[in-house]
């Protein structure tokens, strides 16, 4: 019976209804509209049950990218939370907060000046993009656009050396399960495109990932109105030497979004991202803001931080393009990835359209994607900021030793000056060298002599990590209980839903876990997957032989992929779940 069915086939298949891919689809429809004779088909695969359901972002984004890619976005009702009226960069000590004077911010942290930017709930924007796309497709009859929310791409199918399609369904019958394509575009934040990068040996430097944990709160009626205000913070609670920072964005209708981004190239085996976010909220300033507030949503996602140095050798292979975060287009110095993701989709649309017309999907034909993207003005800053990550990798004392000194002087005198002096006096030679060197890196020095070696996050993890540093990430006990949630309770606000028995995370070898557990137990530490999971998934069970074994409560998983990235033994793989299962981040 099966061999009578035609193959499921599209000209263009987009993996992930991401900002990048939805821009691609929107733009290519625009091109097709002008040439009604030319017919083609597009399918969009999205693992979330509803569009936007698996999107976690900040997000503060410059309006210009929307004006460019979605000129009618205002008329078409794109949801905008607020326009940033005032942005701050702040140093967070345990008790005090010091807003860097705006004149200094403009000089030293210009990337974080966000006035005039849109403040967005990206999950809602993505849902809007999908609706908008449906409406547009109804007008463009020469393009057949099929949308598949709830259908994740599970495996890349190759024909020879060319990407030929994706395994999507699981009936066991290839004809019903595989979607074939002439051109596949990966805007999937690495879920599947990591396999592509590996297969074609595209890696230059390993990607450095960070994890972002975030909550949205409804503020009390009588709270101070902070709509349009944006804070980016450095310091408390990420004081273990890891690069990390917080963000607080004031949304309309008395809501606020509060998040922390913590790099996973940390030596600390127990980062506890969700717990650190709770610590963050214990800060007196946030305690005041959250008085009488109610938690609405919680979620987590990873961010590619490696930047320019981690870009793959090629952005395209025969039959496929890589976009957005999957490519690593985030500029961590400005916490900006949405603009470049959209730009990648915009450029990919033009290249894909040309390829369709020429019926040529070879790497050579597609290579215009890489050259055009690299020439885009949206990539200028990204290129300029390319040594930012290196400064911190090369000079770990900046965050580990000097930052805490500066912060403690903020706690004592409400200003960072004394702390800075103290650092200089205690260790004049080393401090000066580190500062000068990092200053030149942070200021985008054109020449960088010493090469900094990038290592993937899990290779940094050190079971002998100094516990004193770990303890620095905890604040005081003076906080309202209603503002702090345990990890198991936070999951409730991620609205995870799994129908059957989920099995989307592979543990490759249980013996490997046994050894790992022993190693960390011996040091009285948690195993990294248990401590750093952003939901309540990984746990240790006592087996019948009275030994501790690794186990998972997969029904809690928010599919952030942190565990996969930090497992020191690389013993895990997080796959998308079938049937749209997982969190629902809409509104986060």
């Amino acid at each position: 019976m099966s061999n009578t069915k035609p193959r499921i086939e599209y000209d263009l298949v987009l993996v992930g209804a991401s900002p990048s891919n939805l821009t691609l689809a929107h733009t290519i429809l625009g091109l097709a509209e002008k040439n009604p004779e030319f017919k083609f088909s597009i399918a969009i695969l999205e693992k979330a049950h509803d569009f936007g359901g698996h999107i976690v972002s900040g997000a503060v984004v410059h309006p210009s990218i929307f004006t460019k890619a979605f000129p009618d976005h205002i008329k078409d009702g794109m949801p905008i939370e607020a326009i940033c009226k005032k942005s701050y960069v702040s140093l967070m000590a345990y008790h005090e907060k010091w807003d860097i004077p705006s004149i200094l911010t403009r000089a030293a942290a210009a990337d974080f000046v966000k006035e005039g930017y849109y403040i967005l709930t990206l999950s809602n924007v993505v849902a809007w993009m999908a609706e908008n796309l449906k409406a547009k497709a109804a007008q463009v009859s020469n393009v057949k656009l099929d949308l598949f929310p709830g259908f994740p791409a599970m495996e890349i199918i190759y024909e020879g050396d060319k990407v030929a399609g994706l395994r999507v369904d699981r009936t066991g019958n290839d004809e019903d399960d595989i979607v074939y394509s002439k051109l596949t575009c990966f805007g999937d934040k690495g879920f599947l495109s990591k396999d592509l990068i590996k297969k074609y040996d595209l890696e230059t430097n390993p990607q450095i990932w960070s994890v972002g944990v975030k909550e949205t709160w409804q503020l009390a009626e009588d709270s101070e109105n902070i709509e349009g205000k944006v804070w980016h913070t450095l310091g408390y609670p990420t004081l273990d030497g890891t690069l990390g920072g917080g963000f607080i964005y004031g949304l309309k209708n008395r809501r606020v979004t509060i998040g922390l981004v913590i790099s996973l190239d940390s030596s600390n085996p127990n980062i506890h991202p969700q717990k650190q976010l709770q610590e963050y909220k214990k800060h007196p300033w946030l305690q005041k803001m959250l008085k009488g507030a109610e938690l609405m949503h919680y979620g987590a996602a990873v961010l590619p931080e490696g930047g320019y140095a981690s870009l793959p050798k090629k952005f395209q292979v025969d039959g496929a393009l890589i976009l957005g975060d999957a490519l690593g287009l985030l500029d961590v110095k400005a916490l900006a990835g949405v603009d470049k993701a959209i730009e990648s989709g915009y450029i990919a649309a033009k290249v894909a359209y040309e390829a369709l017309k020429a019926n040529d999907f070879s790497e050579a034909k597609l290579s215009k994607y890489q050259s055009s993207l690299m020439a885009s003005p949206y990539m200028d800053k990204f290129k300029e900021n390319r040594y930012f990550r290196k400064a911190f990798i090369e000079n770990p004392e900046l965050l580990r030793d000097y930052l805490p000194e500066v912060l403690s002087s903020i706690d004592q005198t409400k200003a960072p000056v004394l702390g800075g002096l103290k650092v200089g006096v205690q260790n004049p030679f080393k401090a000066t060298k580190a500062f000068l060197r990092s200053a030149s890196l942070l200021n985008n020095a054109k020449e960088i002599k010493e090469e900094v070696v990038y290592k993937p996050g899990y290779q940094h993890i050190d079971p002998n990590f100094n516990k004193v540093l770990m303890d620095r990430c905890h604040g005081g006990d003076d906080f309202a209980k209603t503002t702090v949630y345990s990890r198991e309770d936070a999951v409730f606000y991620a609205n995870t839903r799994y129908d059957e028995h989920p099995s989307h995370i592979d543990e490759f070898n249980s013996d490997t876990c046994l050894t790992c557990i022993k190693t960390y137990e011996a040091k009285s530490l948690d195993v990294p997957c248990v401590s750093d999971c952003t939901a309540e998934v990984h746990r240790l069970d006592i087996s019948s032989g009275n030994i501790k074994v690794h186990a998972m409560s997969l029904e809690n998983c928010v599919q952030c992929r942190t565990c996969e990235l930090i497992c020191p033994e690389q013993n895990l793989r997080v796959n998308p779940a079938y049937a749209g299962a997982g969190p629902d981040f809409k509104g986060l």
Partner: protein
Amino acid sequence: MNKDLDIYVLIKQVPDTRSKAGVNPDGTIDRAKAGKMLNPFDAFALQAGLNAKKMGGPNSRLFAVTMGPPPAIDILYQTLEHGADATCILSDRRLAASDTLATAYALCRTLEYLFKKNGRKADLIFCGLQTTDGDTAQVGPEISERLDFTQVTYCEDFSISDNLLHAKKIIEGGTQLVSAELPALVTIANSYTKLKFKSLRGAQFVQDVKRASKEEQAKYVEIIDLDKCEADEMRCGLNGSPTIVSKTWKIGVVGGNCKMHQGKAASELVSEVFKDAVMLKEFVKI
């Protein structure tokens, strides 16, 4: 191998229980405004229909049938995504305010119309146990009486062999195994297998149908009215409904004092509950 089966699933669109839209302050529902969904009980019936189709011969067919206003076409498309072969909606203003008797009559006319059109009578009809908006559980049994089909209610599992349906029924205090001759009408309990996610091909097929011409669409989603199925309008809608709802009132304040405690550690929730609940404190003391 069983013979080819013609299977019908009767479904209804109901107000979405998860959506807050359309709920009036007094607790009644504004149906026009409310979000809509496939009656959750019918999802089990649909899965039963899909499973039965697999049990039948290779040319077995599954039809989904509903009665309701035009937006109910949505749930028919949903059944196509899951693997129904064709669907039909009876939609007519004269059906407004039908009680179960009138509904069963109108649905019977629709079924008989479809039997004629499809060349033969159904072998199996599946219904959900009840609807979330009517809660009567009467329509299925009434239809089986009218069509003179064997009636199996509260079915939570079944198999088919030799023109016999072997069903596991829930009865008070236990389960009952019955074998019934086809044709049969079965109401499916919500302890049956949950409806599986739609298939990729189904999702693709429905998008194709939605883009197709009206004639092409009608092959999969037929819209009929009372005249088309030769129903007597005096037996439909208000005219055909002997049930008289003389008055509705609230039995005390249902849920008025209900406070949800959620999203915190169990220990915190318990202490919250205790803080509020004087009665509970008294109870625990005793």
